[in-house]
């Protein structure tokens, strides 16, 4: 484990050094990443110039959802989203390189395509979350702080798992990569708003199939002290870490099945 981490540090260290050579380009890319999600926050603020509340949530309560989802998503974006490049490696035949080296293929893929500029998104999400935490008007007990931090991590694991499952599908279906965007980028967008605004079918999918409701909505119910409109089971709002663990298991199984199914081009 320690040794694997050392390898990881070296690999991404090399990536960061090479990307940092073009400083102006790197800076503008980071700004671009920052803006990618910042426009959604601007849209959120514009929405609240027309209404005081959305499904009973105030602007800063929704901003809290936005920030929590943003931090979770961008952590996954920084460390795991590189699996999106899998189809390129499968088509180009370079996936075989990963299989003959003495580390896991998933680990190598994530290290090889690491891009520091994605941090721009994390900075944006973090700033909005910090701003929202100061403005939602709750008393910040240790429990609330811990639940916020733990759900950011759980959310990152959930998003990361969705990314890996989506990428694993590419072992069977080439060219379907854009569907995965519905669940990752789409999931990020969706979890910025309170669940009750969505239709009932979409809500069930989000609670039980692709459990994105546990990224921001359920933990936020606890942190902001809100009433749960769907269930009287109080423990649901603390389930995020368990759900994250379950998605991790599913992602692992999907990835392993994909790698087993993979047959090289044979040339």
């Amino acid at each position, binding site marked *: 484990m320690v040794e694997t981490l050392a390898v990881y540090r070296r690999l991404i260290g090399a990536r960061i050094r090479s990307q940092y050579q*073009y400083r*102006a*380009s*790197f*800076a*503008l*890319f980071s*700004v*671009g*990443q920052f*803006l*990618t999600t*910042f*426009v*959604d926050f*601007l*849209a959120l603020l*514009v*929405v609240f*110039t*027309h*209404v005081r509340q*959305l*499904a009973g949530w105030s602007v800063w309560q929704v901003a809290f959802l936005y920030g929590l989802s943003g931090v979770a998503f961008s952590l996954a974006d920084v460390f795991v989203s590189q699996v999106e490049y899998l189809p390129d490696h499968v088509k180009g035949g370079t996936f075989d390189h990963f299989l003959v080296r003495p580390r896991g293929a998933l680990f190598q893929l994530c290290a090889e395509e690491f891009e520091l500029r994605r941090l721009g998104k994390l900075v944006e999400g973090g700033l909005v979350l910090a701003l929202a935490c100061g403005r939602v008007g709750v008393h910040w007990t240790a429990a609330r702080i811990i639940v916020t931090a733990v759900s950011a991590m759980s959310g990152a694991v959930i998003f990361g798992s969705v990314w890996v499952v989506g990428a694993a599908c590419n072992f069977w*279906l*080439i*060219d*379907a*990569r*854009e*569907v995965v*965007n*519905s669940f990752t980028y*789409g999931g990020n*967008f*969706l979890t910025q*708003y309170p669940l009750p*605004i*969505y*239709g009932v079918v*979409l809500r069930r999918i989000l609670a039980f199939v692709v459990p994105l409701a546990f990224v921001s909505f359920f933990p936020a119910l606890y942190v902001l002290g809100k009433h749960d409109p769907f269930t009287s089971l109080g423990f649901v709002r603390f389930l995020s870490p368990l759900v994250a663990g379950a998605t991790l298991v599913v992602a692992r199984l999907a990835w392993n099945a994909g790698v087993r199914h993979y047959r090289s081009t044979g040339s």
Partner: protein
Amino acid sequence: MYWEVAKRGFRRYSTYRAATVAGVVTNSVFAFIRAYILIAIFRQRAHIGGFDVRDALTYTFVSQGFLMPMAMFGWYDIEQRVRTGDIVSDLYRPVDFQGYWFALDGGRALYQAMARGVPPVLVGAVFFSLRAPPVAALPVFAVSCVLGLAVSFALRFLTNLLSFWIIDVRGPAQVLVMVELFLGGVVLPIALFPRTLEVLARALPFASIAQLPLEVYLGKHPGVDALTTLAVQAAWAAALLLAGRAVLGAVMRKLAVQGG
């Protein structure tokens, strides 16, 4: 000649069927999420900026259909050829460089309008009650879309030409993409913006790409108003295409100096 080039652009993109279906699914999912947010707003306010909930929903699904035909997520075809050096052979061809790329882009846009533009609207119409465009507005809408493409192409042409001066244009291009998506009314209709922001958005060329054609589609510009709208778009298209030609001239001089 330009017709042949356009046909090539059309065919190049029509080869990826699975990717097209995947893309339609994604555009529709995003439209759904936006639709629910808008429904939640309009449940509390019946009218905002001349839009009712049906206008807003129609706007959302049609605007998702604009993303790919208008290449609103970025387009780097010329930049790639500059980076590899292949651009030299493009510049030597006995055709107008800007005209050649515009024809190619027109073919691409026509294919994507059919494959990626129409389906999200049909999906939306299955689940929500969308507004059909007034029949009288359809010819104006068609012209408005072509002018919108001209503005979109002219802006992309300019950013791509920047690659003759700076190594990596993708950073600045991405910044432009986000500004375009927001001020162009794709993230949220400009009609919902606060007054000053709306005035700013309407004073910029980005509104000509999607917002104005979409307003025509919704029948917001009847009669003479339609001609004014088209005139605004045409003015931006002409100005930006000419700017592209001017920059292209500078590129040619620069290359000649370097002995290329």
